[in-house]
């Protein structure tokens, strides 16, 4: 399929936004969005157009428990109650808050080691999560390379491999960083082009055993950003 054809890109983007692009074609298009500015821009344009259709839908307020669950999922110990939406369960948050405070003090005592001064270095980390926000891989970048830990929550397929990619700002082609561990910890060498300031996105793809046969991601599963601390 010729993805350089703007008309084709526009129609694929429109059907992606509408929802009629489905299955493998939808996944292919999502992959294309990662690597092509034109595809992303066409998609944003159709989102902006077609979402005007939502103006015809009459609002329906969700039950208050929906907000409570969202609050729990984003950071249970520190939710700041909005009087309107979380008042009924305020006591729960208070209890959480007390537990969290106690835990923080204990953690601070464990971590604080006055005899060994801590070097103030910029730390680069990334975390891949699945659709339900379960952590899958934690990546810690150091001078030598990338230290990657697979989470216990990861249920890896035995017939496939998972490959890590970086997408540099202003560049379309993802660059492979190597295969991810299915359990435990693994170190990957740092690609010479790996520079936190240049990286737009990190991505994980599902690949045949041994990695991508084409040099490009086969099926992008997750993306995340590199975080500088």
């Amino acid at each position, binding site marked *: 399929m010729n993805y350089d054809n703007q008309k084709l890109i526009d129609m694929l983007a429109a059907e992606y936004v*509408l929802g009629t692009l489905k299955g493998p074609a939808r996944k292919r298009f999502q992959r294309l969005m990662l690597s092509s500015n034109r595809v992303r821009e066409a998609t944003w344009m159709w989102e902006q157009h077609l*979402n005007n259709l*939502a103006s*015809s839908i009459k609002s329906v*307020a969700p039950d208050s*428990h929906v907000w409570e669950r969202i609050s729990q999922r*984003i950071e249970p110990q520190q939710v700041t109650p909005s009087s309107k939406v979380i008042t009924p369960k305020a006591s729960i948050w208070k209890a959480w808050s007390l537990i969290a405070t106690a835990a923080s003090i204990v953690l601070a005592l464990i971590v604080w080691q006055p005899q060994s001064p801590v070097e103030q270095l910029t730390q680069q980390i990334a975390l891949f999560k699945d659709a339900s926000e379960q952590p899958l891989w934690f990546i810690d970048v150091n001078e030598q390379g990338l230290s990657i830990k697979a989470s216990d929550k990861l249920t890896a397929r035995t017939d496939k491999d998972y490959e890590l990619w970086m997408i540099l700002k202003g560049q379309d082609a993802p660059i492979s960083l190597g295969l991810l561990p299915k359990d435990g910890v693994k170190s990957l060498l740092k690609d010479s082009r790996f520079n936190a300031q240049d990286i737009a996105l990190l991505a994980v793809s599902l690949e045949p055993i041994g990695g991508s046969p084409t040099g490009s991601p086969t099926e992008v599963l997750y993306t995340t950003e590199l975080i500088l601390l």
Partner: protein
Amino acid sequence: MKIKLNPHHLVGFVHPLDVIKRLLNEKNNRNSMETDELLPLLSATAQGNKQAFAKLYNATSPKLFAISLKMLSNRAHAEEALQDAFVKIWHNASEYQVTKGTVISWMISIVRYRSLDSLRYHKVRKEQALDDDYASADDLTDLPLEVDYEDGSKLVDCIEQLDEQQKQAIHLAYYKGLTHSELVDHIETPLGTVKSWIRRGLQQLQRCLTL
């Protein structure tokens, strides 16, 4: 490699970013809640401000929940999709850029894509289930859709100019998340015809929107 530019290819071509910029500036497309309230709230959310996130939720969740509920026709599934969408909005707030469209459109897309995933997941489950636990999951009894637009955006003007079948097919896909093959069953029309209605309807929409 040299690329030859044929001037004919440029006639009528409007860069998508220009369209987005025009849409953002278009008075017709204004949304006072958008500029006055949502962008600052989303920006503060991106900084980790949970009070702002709560206000963003209060301001947008009734509309977003209604979109999900209309698509899924199942309150529990719609609540789950809304939760997932807002968790994603919390984590991805910093990824929003004005070039992606208005804040509310960006949020609607997140909810719709999550609802589409949910719809297809539960449909597969329903097809696989021997009992009919999921019988109410995709209730289509409220079709055909009655659509009554609140605002007068250009999209609404353009969609009103489509043939009735094109309009109906696009509405069913947008509001109910129906796929081509589900549209075939619902409208009792061959697959090729349904695909053509959607494709031509979208092409006509694009021509109308970029004029």
